[in-house]
């Protein structure tokens, strides 16, 4: 990388179901709730004199926003007037990577990245069905849940993962989320509660999918010199890679996660990590469905293939374990589409800054933030963040 880049400030809103308030805030008002804190924390402005924020990246998905050119509704609060404002039409985690390369290329010094979605305003099932090709998969009525169920079933069949193990991911998530002031779903659950909730698509139940919530997350990235001036706790991006798998679900053995393995290996190589389980102190990963955490832990190399269930059983991914996974509770405790991966990076940054409060993993020096998108995890991104340069 040509220049070193750090994340200098992050902020999230409390994730909540806005339908309860009749959709009180619009997109920019919700996004501004996380923009204002990062501006205040860094004392940065949008000044043009070389001290201000140079560019912005707006992250929102047109089909989840229900509108083309959707960044036109969020750009003002990101200070885009007469400056570079890009728009990433995917998870906000991709936006952070984009900001990283913008800065590393030498084009900009400071970039603000904001992601937002109002999930509760969108017809989830229809939006998800729209993501499948109109000829072979859409007319089978697929949505992300039924596609995920196919993957869960294949994974369970091939490696003997049990439904109880999957359910315990939700239990752990909710337990961790109790310590996270931004989390939405924090009630105590047992594995029986999870398995006994409404069956959506066998083997996935209503409590095994992420709840529909709304919110935003914003962060500021800066090049080395400026980062050090802005904050005494810059968190450095040490490695990142994302990767696409093939499209048709029938092309893949769904119990594999090839694109995640490629992304993880790429990120590890860039960050100089050889033994991820030992070297990574905490991981925040994109978990839309309970089984995701087990399968993604395998893809990330935290355990061998097929050992995801055993890894969970061993307690290694619990708070206090060797590699705590999702101390924040992750998306299963509530995090909107698009913001999901961005918030994982924000949580990883908080852990490394030592600002994670009750969910703090002691002495965290290296963190992993993962994001996924597409049916059955077609796209994955792995980012390694470090406290030290």
């Amino acid at each position, binding site marked *: 990388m040509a220049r070193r880049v750090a994340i200098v400030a992050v902020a999230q809103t409390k994730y909540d179901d806005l339908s309860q308030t009749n959709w009180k805030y619009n997109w920019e008002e919700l996004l501004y709730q996380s923009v204002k804190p990062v501006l205040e924390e860094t004392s940065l*402005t949008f000044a043009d004199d070389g001290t201000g924020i140079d560019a912005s990246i707006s992250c929102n998905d047109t089909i989840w926003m229900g509108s083309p050119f959707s960044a036109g509704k969020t750009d003002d609060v990101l200070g885009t007037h007469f400056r570079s404002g890009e728009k990433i039409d995917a998870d906000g985690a991709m936006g952070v990577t984009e900001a990283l390369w913008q800065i590393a290329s030498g084009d900009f010094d400071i970039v603000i990245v904001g992601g937002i979605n109002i999930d509760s305003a969108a017809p989830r099932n229809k939006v998800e069905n729209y993501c499948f090709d109109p000829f072979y998969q859409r007319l089978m009525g697929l949505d992300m849940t039924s596609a995920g169920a196919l993957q869960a079933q294949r994974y369970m069949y091939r490696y003997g993962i049990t439904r109880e193990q999957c359910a315990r991911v939700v239990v752990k998530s909710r337990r961790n989320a109790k310590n996270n002031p931004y989390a939405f779903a924090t009630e105590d659950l047992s594995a029986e509660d999870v398995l006994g909730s409404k069956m959506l698509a066998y083997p996935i139940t209503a409590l095994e999918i992420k709840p529909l919530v709304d919110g935003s997350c914003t962060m500021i990235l800066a090049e080395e010199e400026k980062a050090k001036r802005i904050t005494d706790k810059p968190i450095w991006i040490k490695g990142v890679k994302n990767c696409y798998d093939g499209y048709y679900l029938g092309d893949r053995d769904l119990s594999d996660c090839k694109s995640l393995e490629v992304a993880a290996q790429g990120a590890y190589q860039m960050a100089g990590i050889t033994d991820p389980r030992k070297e990574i102190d905490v991981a925040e990963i994109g978990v839309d469905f309970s089984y995701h955490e087990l399968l993604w832990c395998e893809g990330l190399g935290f355990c061998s293939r097929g050992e995801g269930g055993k890894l969970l059983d061993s307690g290694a991914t619990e708070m206090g374990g060797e590699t705590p996974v999702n101390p924040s509770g992750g998306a299963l405790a509530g995090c909107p589409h698009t913001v999901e991966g961005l918030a994982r990076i924000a949580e990883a940054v908080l852990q490394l800054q030592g600002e994670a409060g009750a969910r703090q993993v002691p002495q965290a020096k290296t963190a992993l933030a993962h994001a996924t998108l597409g049916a059955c995890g077609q796209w994955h991104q792995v980012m390694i963040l470090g406290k030290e340069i």
Partner: protein
Amino acid sequence: MTEEQQPEVLPIIAGVDFRFKYPAGVYMSKCLHELKENAKFLGIQCPKCKAIWWPPQVVCSYCHAETGTNWVELGPRGTVVNWVVVHIPSIDPRTGELKTSQPPAAVIRLDGPEGGGANWLHFLEETDLEKIKKGMRVEAVFKPKEEREGQASDVLFFRTVEE
């Protein structure tokens, strides 16, 4: 099987008809309530660069200052600065239905404090193109109060006034 034997290319119907809930937000809601209840145009002024925003919004587009509650009253009169006439059938994207003929659409600069103002895209009552001039003074004509819904369409159109 050779290329020549292939039949015509087929279409497949697999669209998704989705409807979203679109929030106005706290600033726009406040201003729409004001339109509905009091027939007043409640804009907001940037405390820093004095730009006026209509509809009101959370930060100033120009200088990113928070607008807070720096309300200013606009209108109900304004000046026509630009206008067009739609000649083609158009679809209302909110409902998917065909819009029949519509009156001239105009950009009206609503009167504001200290010579300031804010532009609004709305309709004119005057349909004779010969009579529409730049700088023409107009005034908002509201629906009767009981028919107002808290929408921009609570203003029916702008009527030419002599000053």
